[in-house]
């Protein structure tokens, strides 16, 4: 019973972080219909950058985080400006593969700059574990869930009330109409990339303070795709709900299925979910079904 509670709490908290990273994907997809497959590598590089700022340079926490956010903003802006803007109007195959190439490049940069390949994130959160019922949860999980929820709330408010947020939603709906209204669409693209990478950076810092900085973070980014697929590509709500579902499935499956199958089943459950969703409901729980006309 204690195990069950433990799995559920861990699953939901980790799932919320997945949701956060997935939101970054959905943001870009909705505004510019580019699929960012370099998400995992972006999570990785932002985590390493945080490590550099905090552990190697030795900045205080607040300064470190400002630097990380600035780094993420710069990365997002560069991505959009240099790589994706020349490709506007190209077939989707190019748009998908170009992000694959960027991912490859970023992975190279990571092993170039941080050759140690494994590191522990400096302690950001207090260390004493929390007892909930019979389960013992380290505080990182709780903080991760809390920060994710806070960011969801902020983003919701941003999209609902802020002028730029409304413009972004409008761009997602109809690019040409937005352009006709005098909203600079390319600036919206840049902004959504910058926001998305900041979300990936926050997600990366939260994940790596739980599990350390390893190449596994790339897989975390790829797991965020399963969140996106399950929730529906173009649905913020879907991403928020699907994250905890994936997290739960992963942890419960890891807990109870390992004895039945092979070890490491936890790592592939999100991928198995992807395949199942593809067969049953390819546009996800909340995604809009696309109707194509010739």
């Amino acid at each position, binding site marked *: 019973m204690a195990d069950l509670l433990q799995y559920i709490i861990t699953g939901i908290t980790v799932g919320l972080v997945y949701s956060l990273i997935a939101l970054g994907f959905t943001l870009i997809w909705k505004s510019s219909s580019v699929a960012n497959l370099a998400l995992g590598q972006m999570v990785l590089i932002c985590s390493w950058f945080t490590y550099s700022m905090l552990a190697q340079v030795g900045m205080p926490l607040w300064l470190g985080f400002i630097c990380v956010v600035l780094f993420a903003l710069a990365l997002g802006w560069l991505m959009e400006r240099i790589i994706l803007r020349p*490709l506007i109007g190209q077939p989707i195959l190019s748009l998908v*593969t170009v992000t694959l190439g960027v991912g490859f490049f970023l992975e190279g940069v990571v092993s170039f700059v941080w050759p140690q390949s494994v590191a522990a994130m400096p302690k950001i959160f207090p260390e004493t574990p929390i007892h909930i019922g019979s389960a013992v949860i380290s505080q990182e999980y709780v903080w991760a869930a809390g920060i994710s929820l806070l960011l969801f709330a902020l983003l919701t408010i941003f999209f609902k009330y802020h002028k730029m947020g409304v413009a972004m939603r409008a761009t997602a709906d109809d690019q040409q109409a937005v352009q006709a209204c005098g909203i600079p669409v390319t600036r919206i693209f840049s902004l959504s990339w910058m926001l998305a990478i900041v979300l990936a950076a926050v997600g990366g810092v939260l994940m790596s303070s739980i599990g350390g900085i390893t190449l596994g973070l790339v897989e975390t980014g790829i797991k965020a795709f399963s969140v996106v697929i399950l929730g529906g590509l173009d649905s913020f709500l879907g991403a928020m709900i699907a994250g905890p579902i994936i997290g739960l499935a992963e942890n419960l499956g890891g807990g109870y299925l390992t004895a039945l199958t092979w070890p490491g089943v936890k790592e592939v459950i999100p991928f198995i979910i*992807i395949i199942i969703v593809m067969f049953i409901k390819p546009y996800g729980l909340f995604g809009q079904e696309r109707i194509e006309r010739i």
Partner: protein
Amino acid sequence: MDLPCGTRNFSYKTDMAIFRTKTHWAMLIGFLILLFSLPFNINSYWLGILNLIGITVIAAAGLNILMGYCGQLSVGHAGFIAVGAYTTAILANKLGVPFPFDMIASGIMAGLVGVLFGLPSLRVKGFYLAISTIAAQFIIIWVINHWSGLTGGFNGIVIPPINLFNFDFTTQGSQFFIIMLVAVLAIFFMKNIARTRIGRAFVAIRDNDLAAEVMGINVFRYKLLAFFIGCFLAGVAGSLMAHWIGYLTAENFTLSDSILYVGIVIIGGLGTGVGPILGTLFIRLLQQGVQYVSPLMGSAFPQLPSGFAAGLGPMVFGLAIVLFLVLEPRGLAHRWQLFKSSYRYWPFSY
């Protein structure tokens, strides 16, 4: 299709021929003689590289059918190659199946697995398909790593060398003949399939699958057929790779390799005959160049970080993929075409 000055076609047969003129035929035969005389002229280090290039060409030809002609993005090609490689490993190691049969069985096995993971392609495309093939990659590698009774798991598995007529193909030079023979056949097969009814159906599906369906093409069948053929060639490449390396672990088939294959097909030129060859040559020779340059750079500039050697490769390939997509989306094949026409029309280039 442009022809050399003064050459005309007077029958359908000559119009459809891949090799149209006597010069073409002479160049083809010369190239084949040159290719198959290489083992007698160069050392085994370069033969090893050429063998790797040959194997990669076969796999890239498969991916080119799938991605270039049929337009179905697959980021799990290394996974399908792994299926082929391990099928060969199990057949040759545990059951003692002789060479050409284990290769064909590997191809069919990889093709069937490809069809299984290609099933979602009926309803989804683009990004969705990319994700489901990435998922395929991870699931396949996980199964290989953990079904250790069959695949050897993390410890790996040993594959006996190819044995034909009581001759063991152990040296790079002898394997070169088999690998290159299969590679030439694979390219020939790919080039020809693009000209048949199947190939035209693939192209129609790539350009617009709804329109293709309206025209009476059974989209479901042809998409799955594309997955089967593409993954069949991947399986064949995997089988040859298994015999060539002689010892397999799942480390040989990572997601990065899958991305590299996508990069090869893109850099070469999607949906072209020479694309896979040019792309493979470009990427594999670039790899060699990086391997050669990085220790030199390391000793020349000691202040470079120690991750330099490990990071340079991925950085260069990632950059190559991105630059090609941004600057030359039609790939090296387009450049080759431009070169050929400027050469043919010289000195009257209009």
